[in-house]
């Protein structure tokens, strides 16, 4: 076994205020808080609509059900004709596969437009979460979005970065109600919208344990400044490592094969690998997670987090979510959680683990916390997927899955959010089961306003075949003479089960 020699991490003491701090920026800035903002549910349990992730016919298509839920949950009433409607999604990291399929987003864009809204799809830039992060720079993020199929052409509306070219196009929102945060910064394309429909991919998250619609508001709507604040950058003392990375005395220095990537990981040159150990300047650090993710996910143990960081960050991101919600009048934000590909980590990771459970379904409503709580409960009740990290950790159906997978219960965020007025965790679950009928079968198959018009495709083909009946022209097709032996027995030679049939 190799015995590493190292020097302990050097701690530089803080020297006065941070240069470039917020004292010099927007100290008395615009505050777009709406006068009529507030949680949608003021009393009693909130209605949440659910449709399971299974389809056996036209009406049960997940896309059709997401359109049904849009109307059942009255998300069409979140905006009026002519409103600018931001569709908030996560664009997904480069090389990420577990993301929302473009069809889910296109489906809602179509219905927003059908109801008279003017939709545009948005996501903010991120911080540099790891060395080769592609979401921190807008054009990198758009390149990844296009690769995922998130384009103007697939959605039928503009696909934009909400906080500008560099992640600095934002509004400051004051949140005196916050448990920890008292201000946040929201991307302009979101803050200036009349209404917002949030389409979230429900899955795990390394920092907040779980990420769904609340995460979309608490981090996804934040500009770079907003994300730094939510990360709790420079909160507390460097030695506590709440607002800074935690440096352990286990860094092997240049003996580590990852040391060059580790040096490259900081966008502010806040740390440097030495022959033995690492030198770090906390004044420069803004807690973007890049060094931590680079070290932790490469299997090394030199940089990490203080354990108590996570619950505090979870509570902070509930505060930040309130900042985003305050940019809209009450009832102007609708939510759909897609509990599909419920993987352990965030869409900002450039990989995807096995899902912790089978696909659960869709959850829609106008109360943020109620939709989130219903989603979490259903995920927890679901079976455990074999081979997943949850399976490896011994998780069982009914367990708090993301607590086992990631360390803390997502209910911390929920409880914090309820305290500051994000909504109610009480909900009544309305299960949506579409009725199989001719009317419903054609309801979402016919693309109104699209190339496919209001007639069945088969009827349209009658016109085509009258002009050019391609099958008749080439009949009879070339093939062997008809032989009953082929029909009854010969084909069985190609079947590994010798033609044995199973009961349907």
């Amino acid at each position: 076994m190799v015995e590493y020699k190292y020097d302990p991490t050097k701690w530089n003491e803080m020297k006065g205020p941070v240069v470039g701090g917020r004292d010099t920026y927007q100290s008395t800035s615009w505050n777009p808080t709406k006068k009529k903002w507030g949680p949608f549910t003021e009393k009693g349990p909130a209605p949440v609509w659910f449709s399971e992730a299974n389809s056996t016919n036209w009406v049960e298509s997940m896309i059709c059900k997401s359109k049904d839920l849009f109307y059942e949950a009255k998300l069409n009433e979140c905006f009026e004709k002519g409103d600018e409607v931001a569709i908030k999604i996560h664009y997904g990291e480069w090389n990420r596969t577990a993301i929302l399929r473009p069809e889910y987003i296109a489906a809602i864009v179509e219905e927003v437009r059908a109801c008279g809204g003017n939709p545009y799809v948005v996501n903010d830039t991120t911080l540099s979460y790891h060395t080769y992060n592609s979401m921190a720079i807008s054009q990198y993020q758009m390149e990844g979005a296009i690769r995922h199929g998130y384009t103007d052409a697939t959605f039928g509306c503009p696909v934009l970065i909400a906080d500008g070219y560099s992640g600095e196009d934002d509004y400051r929102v004051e949140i005196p109600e916050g448990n920890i945060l008292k201000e946040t910064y929201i991307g302009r394309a979101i803050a200036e919208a009349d209404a917002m429909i949030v389409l979230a991919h429900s899955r795990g998250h390394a920092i907040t344990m779980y990420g769904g619609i609340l995460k979309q508001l608490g981090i996804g709507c934040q500009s770079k400044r907003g994300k730094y604040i939510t990360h709790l950058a420079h909160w507390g003392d460097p030695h506590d490592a709440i607002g800074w990375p935690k440096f352990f005395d286990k860094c092997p220095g240049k003996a580590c094969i990852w040391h060059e990537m580790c040096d490259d990981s900081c966008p502010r040159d806040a740390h440097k690998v030495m022959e033995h150990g690492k030198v770090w300047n906390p004044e420069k650090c803004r807690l973007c997670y890049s060094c931590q993710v680079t070290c932790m996910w490469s299997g090394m143990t030199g940089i990490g987090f203080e354990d108590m960081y996570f619950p505090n960050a979870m509570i902070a991101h509930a505060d930040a979510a309130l900042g985003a919600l305050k940019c809209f009048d009450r009832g102007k934000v609708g939510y759909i959680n897609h509990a599909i590909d419920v993987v352990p980590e965030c869409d900002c990771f450039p990989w995807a683990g096995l899902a912790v459970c089978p696909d659960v379904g869709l959850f829609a409503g106008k109360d943020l916390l109620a939709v989130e709580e219903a989603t979490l409960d259903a995920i927890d009740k679901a079976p455990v997927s074999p081979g997943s990290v949850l399976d490896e950790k011994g998780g069982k159906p009914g367990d708090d899955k993301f607590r086992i997978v990631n360390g803390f219960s997502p209910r911390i965020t929920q409880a914090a959010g309820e305290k500051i007025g994000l909504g109610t965790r009480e909900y009544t679950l309305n299960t949506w089961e579409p009725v199989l009928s001719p009317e419903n079968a054609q309801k979402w198959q016919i693309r109104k306003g699209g190339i496919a018009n209001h007639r069945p495709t088969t009827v349209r083909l009658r016109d085509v075949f009258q002009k050019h009946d391609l099958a008749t022209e080439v009949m009879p097709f070339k093939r062997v003479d008809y032989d009953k032996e082929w029909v009854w027995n010969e084909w069985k030679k190609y079947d590994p089960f010798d033609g044995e049939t199973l009961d349907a």
Partner: protein
Amino acid sequence: MSRVIWVDAQHMAFDNSVPHKLHQLIHTSGAVAELSEGMRVALKINTAEEGYEYGLRPSLLRIVAEAAHAATKTRPIVCDGLKLVDYWKKSMGNLYMQVASARGYSNETLGGHFVINGGFSGDEGDLFACNDVDAELGGVEVGTAVCRSDALWVLSHVTLHPLFGLSGALLNGGFDCLVGRARTRVLDGLNPYPFNGYRPKAEDVHTFQRRALECLQGVNKAVENRVFYINYLWDVTPQPEYFPYSDSPLVQNLGFLAASDPVALDHATYHVLQQADADLAEAVTAKFPDVLRAAEAMDLGQRDGTLERLS
């Protein structure tokens, strides 16, 4: 003495089509000489307002974008700022993109990432000093797509301009690269739509011209003078692209001019238009030589140059 290359629109052939001519222009002018692998190049273009129907075809811009891509092995940024005045109530970022998309301008067609210079609000930018001792503005805020790039190529659709005289390298590479609120400040109350009977005062126009030239100083500083200019003499209309309409072009298409000196380039452009008997009698445009003279006095370039015509 500055060198201006002009590839005209004559003698079209299978091996001398518009794409061939643009490639020749880029090759002969040495546009890519200053570029190296990994550099982020911003291409500042003009996007047409709804109602203006003579915008440059995307393919004319794409050829240049592909040349920048080939030189840097990095996909360039193609950008323009939000329209200054909300003429059709469409100055929000999403509506701007819808209008541009309807003109065929997209990531897919332009050969680079098409973004708003200044973000969704059009106001995302950094402040750069105008280095003239007599500068009125002190500094200007340059949009992020431009000021965060390693080099800037200014691709200008040449038209007449009711305030500046000629919309070309000097205006598109300076004033048009600013964030929206900075452009409003530069205009200082001057209405950029002098039609329907409105006529700005001559002294206000002169003040704007002076300030617009100062903007170029700020942009040059933002990209550390790594700027190259191409003027498209293609559908040269009496109105610039931000107008919600346009009359027919003044002259036949004359080709493309390029230089690294914006003063020499616009001077040559004006000369080529005059030689083609373009009607430049409009009051402001007729005095564009005064703007060129002022630009030279501000060390933005020199009017005297060699004009090399390729056909």
